[in-house]
């Protein structure tokens, strides 16, 4: 039962990752690419974390996985903000 849930959620997460990567490769400019990367990839990571949490043996391990996802969200959000602000400044300078 837990294995089935792992397969399901990891598969969904993989789908979101592929979608994010396709968007990253195909979108025309920096801002839309950042959009694809932060939204789709982080959601995919959340699903993969949920899937692997079903394999955890104790609540402590699942909590650690959730902490990892939270930290990645924090870092990704900050970095994409900084990159987009720099790209905006560069575009306005031209």
């Amino acid at each position, binding site marked *: 039962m837990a294995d089935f849930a792992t397969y399901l959620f990891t598969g969904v997460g993989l789908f979101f990752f592929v979608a994010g990567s396709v968007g990253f490769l195909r979108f025309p400019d920096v801002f839309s690419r950042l959009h694809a990367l932060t939204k789709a990839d982080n959601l995919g990571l959340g699903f993969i974390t949920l899937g692997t949490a079903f394999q955890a043996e104790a609540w402590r391990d699942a909590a650690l996985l959730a*902490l990892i996802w939270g*930290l990645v969200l*924090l*870092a990704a959000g*900050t970095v994409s*903000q*900084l990159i987009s*602000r720099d790209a905006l400044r560069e575009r306005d300078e031209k």
Partner: protein
Amino acid sequence: MTLIFDAMLCALTLGVALATVLGCGVFRTIVFFVVYGLLLSVAWVRLDAVDVALAEAAIGAGLTGVLFLAAFGKLTRIGVEAEPSPKRFHLPAALGCIGLSGAMAWAWFALPEPHRPTPDLSDALPRAGVENPVTAVLLNFRAWDTLLEGTVLLAALIGLWILTRDEDWHHRLGRLQHVRSGGVMESFGRLLPPVGTLVGVYLIYIGADQPGGAFQGGTVLAAVGLIAALAGLLRPPRITECSWRMALVAGPLVFLGAGVAGEVFGVGFLTLPGSIAEGAIFIIEVALGLSIAVTLALLVIGPPEGGDSE
């Protein structure tokens, strides 16, 4: 099944390594190098070496990537010309390198069969004082290597400081950071350090029984310090400040002191008798972790660059 996964991982790693070498533009090379480091961490987990995976992800991919990116930024600010124009393909060099890889592959197949596990190590592990075999080897059985490693870190930092120009000697290390107050970077710099410090201290503490240790935890602490410095919340010290120098040498000094104490009490230099091994290793790891954190952070920040108003 797992062999297919290993094969794909190896193929991906080789592809990214080729992209690193053949990419046009130094920035592309640096980015691919960071990706390569992360793939290598997964490879280490597959090779049953979780401590090494932690070290590779933190130091090999993380800190080294930051180091190169910062250097690239410095070079751009200095205004050096971009990469020289298209490189020729050096056939003799390529053939030589293929021969080198072939020689290494031949060496692998020519290796003698090992006696595993070596009888001395499996007998000695119970009296090492810690449960994690890698920590036992690093801090007890081959403590000499780790002591020298701490000294090498310090030597590299001193070498880096020697490169300072005379007029910059009394300035703070690195460059003054301009951060918008109340902005995203500053909030990140306030939000991350509590969690990051907890993770780093936990990694140092848990290294005795599970994968972790002074190097991995110290690197996380160094990264936390770097984020705080980037957010403008922690100003890098000057070279002459005494308290920071104490923090830098605390680790190697404590380690050396433990070694000399062993000699003084007659058990031999850097030998930890089984009864006190656990406590001694804990004290050494804490001091070493602190020194590693400060040394690695200052290594990445670099020498003083002057131009500050203080």
